[in-house]
């Protein structure tokens, strides 16, 4: 099926508006990584994945997605709402008390679409591999997707999981790294350099490809390619180059907007850059 790029781009614009409105309303949260990964989420939930918004925790007979870098919850929440998992108006409760939309994703409050808590970094890939193994045992021929951060690659558990997945030929798994080069304290290369990340993953036994994460056509093509690379005895990793804060000019290309909310003036500037397309929540 060919993607409806015009519609998908409209959704991306709306999701970016949602992200900025959510973090502005509660004056907290992580807009940078959320904005940078918007194309990825739109491609995944509105074109790539076979998934059921009538949420079922076991997720048998559908593709699954796990977010390991849970702090970019705004983009996931907006995507889930716009995909029909829950009413978009619930986005207004983000990070407020008694909300299902916790600061970091959780199953605890029963938000449809979330299958594991994340936020403490490095854990999501292991969970995704476990879910992929359950699919194998259940003879369920669907994919498991996972997204990680690049700063998150500094966590040791990631490499335990990387070794395990390759050794056990977990080839129904498609993992992606948001390769934006930024983390809270600065540029990843200055904090703890990942050096040749592609070579690292390849040497662990993964099939690795790279694509631009802020071009919707390239993201779709990349994920479709990943599906063809899968099921050949190796887990698949996408190194997805993105720009933190993409879509809002003053938030782009810096670690400064990793976890900071815009003030009223900045908010107005951002809103002027992001078109309302399918209706604000």
């Amino acid at each position, binding site marked *: 099926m060919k993607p409806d790029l015009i519609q998908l781009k409209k959704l991306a614009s709306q999701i970016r508006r949602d992200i900025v409105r959510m973090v502005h309303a509660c004056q907290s949260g992580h807009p940078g990584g959320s904005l940078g990964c918007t194309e990825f989420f739109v491609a995944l939930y509105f074109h790539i994945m076979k998934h059921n918004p009538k949420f079922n925790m076991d997720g048998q007979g559908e593709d699954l997605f796990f977010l390991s870098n849970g702090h970019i919850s705004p983009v996931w929440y907006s995507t889930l709402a716009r995909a029909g998992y829950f009413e978009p108006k619930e986005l207004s409760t983000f990070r407020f008390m008694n909300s299902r939309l916790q600061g970091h994703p959780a199953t605890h409050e029963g938000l449809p679409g979330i299958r594991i808590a994340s936020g403490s970094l490095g854990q999501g890939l*292991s969970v995704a591999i476990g879910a992929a193994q*359950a699919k194998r045992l259940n003879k369920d021929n669907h994919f498991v997707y996972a997204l990680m951060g690049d700063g998150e690659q500094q966590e040791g558990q990631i490499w335990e999981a990387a070794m395990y997945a390759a050794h056990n030929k977990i080839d129904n798994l498609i993992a992606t790294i948001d390769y934006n080069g930024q983390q809270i304290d600065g540029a990843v290369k200055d904090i703890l350099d990942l050096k040749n990340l592609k070579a690292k993953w390849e040497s662990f036994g993964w099939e690795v490809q790279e694509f631009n994460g802020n071009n919707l056509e390239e993201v779709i093509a990349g994920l479709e390619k990943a599906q063809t690379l899968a099921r050949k005895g190796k887990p698949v990793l996408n190194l997805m180059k993105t720009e933190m804060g993409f879509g809002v000019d003053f938030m782009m290309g810096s670690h400064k907007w990793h976890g900071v909310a815009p003030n009223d003036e900045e908010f107005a500037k951002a809103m002027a850059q992001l078109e309302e397309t399918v209706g604000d929540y």
Partner: protein
Amino acid sequence: MTKFTFTEKKDTRSGFGAGLHELGRKNSNVVALCADLTGSLKMDAFKKEFPERFFQVGIAEANMMGLAAGLTIGGKIPFTGTFANFSTGRVYDQIRQSIAYSGKNVKICASHAGLTLGEDGATHQILEDIGMMKMLPHMTVIVPADYNQTKAATIALGDHHGPAYLRFGRPTWPIFNAPDRPFAIGKADKLIDGKDVTIFACGHMVWQAVEAEAKLAEKGISVELINIHTIKPLDVEAVLASAQKTKCVVTCEEHQINGGLGDSIAQVLGRFFPAPIEMVAVNDSFGESGKPTDLLKKYGLSPDNIVTAVEKVLKRK
């Protein structure tokens, strides 16, 4: 009530292995993961019969906890196996976020707990695991007393829904529970009826308390002995009923005095029925290499230490 004796000794870890094997035959959703300690955890029988449901994860416990959480998504019931130290302290945050907070049906099965691990020494003799696990919301914590009870507890976990921690050990230990003795998670098991003092014990210390009771009976002291195999949820009703009857309490555990069974019992007494309590436990110290029974003696966990604690608490009545 009958006095408890034994004719055979076996390690509680073998009870786990036997229970897991039986559970594997009973329920095809049961899967097992092990971090390079299959023989030590007695998981070989399960591995041999169900190779497709057994996951060797290597020396990577953090990944093992995440894998287990993921396997529940799709309806599997994962049992993880490694030493108690690597099952808890090493992977506390993985358990907290991916298992406990996420409400995943993972059974964390931990061997070689406590001083009775013996010669390997303090690096492996975890004495803080009950505390760490019981603090996690909704975590069930079970510390069975002998081979038969560990087997029964393992099988019971197959039908239990939610995260659970099962703690057992390495040494051969008296088997005093009959194989058909009923076991229910969260239900205290009264072994001996008495009127002067209540001893609440768990794990290997239940047998130590059985021996202490015989010595105390000779001195004319009537002991009520209750096996608290489930530390959490605690059988508060049974604890209170016995404390109200005997009006003084001794707790026994192979764990730090901070954070274990004694803490849980003291909390109940403090809130609902203040009564004198003495705790037989490791007193804020690490262990060391040695023979299990020698270590239990040195660190104050022998039957004689229990006798002393009982005599002390009786004077405070």
